[in-house]
């Protein structure tokens, strides 16, 4: 489904990695590891089409993602370092705006907020939320999306143990239902599904 061939990425005149070839099919997960500065975030951004690669190609369902960008984006959900929440808006509004593109019912949003442990504070502007709560709000999108490919950059940051379990359960559910997952994380994953590990440090040219 997702096929990466001969990918090379440069930052600031420096080759981060080259000759990276990976493919990912339904129900598979990929855990990208590497030292600080190895280019994990950059790789994820390249996979989303936000950053341009120096060479190599990325295809989704056999189609080059730079050509069929809109089709790819409708199957893609990306969560970066930043939570992409508007601090003036409350949790409900934020989630609705983030998913304004999908027709999601109010009940579904309420359910998702409850599930994320934000049910009681869903009326508060998000600037009153803690880091962990903001992250959970951001991750609550995973409960409502129909995207097949999830690309998550350090999703566990700022989460407590309970929230980590909560996130794990949803990642499992996604993989079991044939979804695909690419994530970076510095901690070892506690998922029960088997997830391949890609070490960027070993990818040097």
């Amino acid at each position: 489904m997702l096929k990466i061939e001969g990918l090379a990425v440069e930052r600031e005149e420096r080759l981060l990695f080259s000759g990276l070839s990976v493919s990912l099919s339904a129900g598979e997960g990929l855990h990208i590891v590497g030292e600080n500065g190895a280019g994990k975030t950059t790789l994820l951004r390249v996979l989303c089409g936000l950053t341009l690669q120096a060479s190599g190609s990325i295809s989704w369902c056999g189609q080059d993602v730079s050509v069929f960008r809109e089709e790819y984006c409708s199957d893609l959900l990306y969560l970066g370092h930043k939570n992409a929440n508007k601090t003036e808006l409350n949790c409900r509004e934020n989630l609705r705006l983030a998913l304004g593109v999908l027709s999601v019912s109010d009940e579904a949003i309420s359910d998702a907020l409850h599930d994320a442990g934000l049910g009681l504070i869903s009326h508060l502007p998000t600037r009153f939320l803690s880091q962990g709560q903001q992250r959970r709000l951001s991750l609550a999108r995973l409960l409502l999306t129909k995207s097949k490919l999830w690309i998550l950059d350090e999703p566990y940051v700022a989460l407590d143990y309970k929230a980590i379990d909560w996130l794990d359960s949803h990642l499992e559910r996604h993989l079991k239902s044939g979804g695909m997952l690419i994530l970076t994380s510095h901690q070892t994953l506690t998922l029960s599904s088997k997830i391949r590990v890609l070490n960027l440090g070993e990818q040097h040219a």
Partner: protein
Amino acid sequence: MHKMLWALFSRDMTLFMHRKQDVVTVLGFFLIAVALFPLGISSDPELLRTIAPGAIWIAALFSTVLALDRLFSEDLDDGTLEQQMLMPVPISLMLLVRLIAHWVITSLPIVLLAPIMGLQFGLAFNEIVILTLSLLVGTPILVLLGAIGAALTVGLKSSGGLVTLLLLPLYVPVLILGSSAVSSVMNGADVTAHFSLMGAALIISLVLSPFAVATALKITLD
């Protein structure tokens, strides 16, 4: 697809309802800038009438630049800009919608206030009509062109001064067309040429500018 674009438009409107002070700042800037011209030059009614088109247009131009500062910067900081770039619609279309919303929020009030400014400068009724119409056609061009500069400088520390330097050369033709339309009508000349040119410029920038802004944003986010 139009559903997504509508959602995007209403997003910008919702956000505007939560931070009206931004628009109030821009409008206040516009009013003060216009008021400074008589104070700085002279209160002679004849002279004021002569400088009115230029004064109001220049104030509108700088207000546009001021407002453009907010177009992308906060969305870049909190990560929503990335999410918008990943929406399953063409980026240029997404940007066009956002620019229209931006114009409605920040420029339309200026256009609506312009008649009052015209009265302050002693313009006649038909001159005020032309002034308002010239701003109605001209300010969208300013926003569309200005977004290119805003996209190129978003996230930079000293973006305010830089964006002014980048944009002023691009704004000169619009300023000339807009303010000379008003001066021409004051001299009893025909203004159809001005409005045909401005209309053409508006159509061209509506078509081309979203692509240019998309390219600039891709470079900035890279």
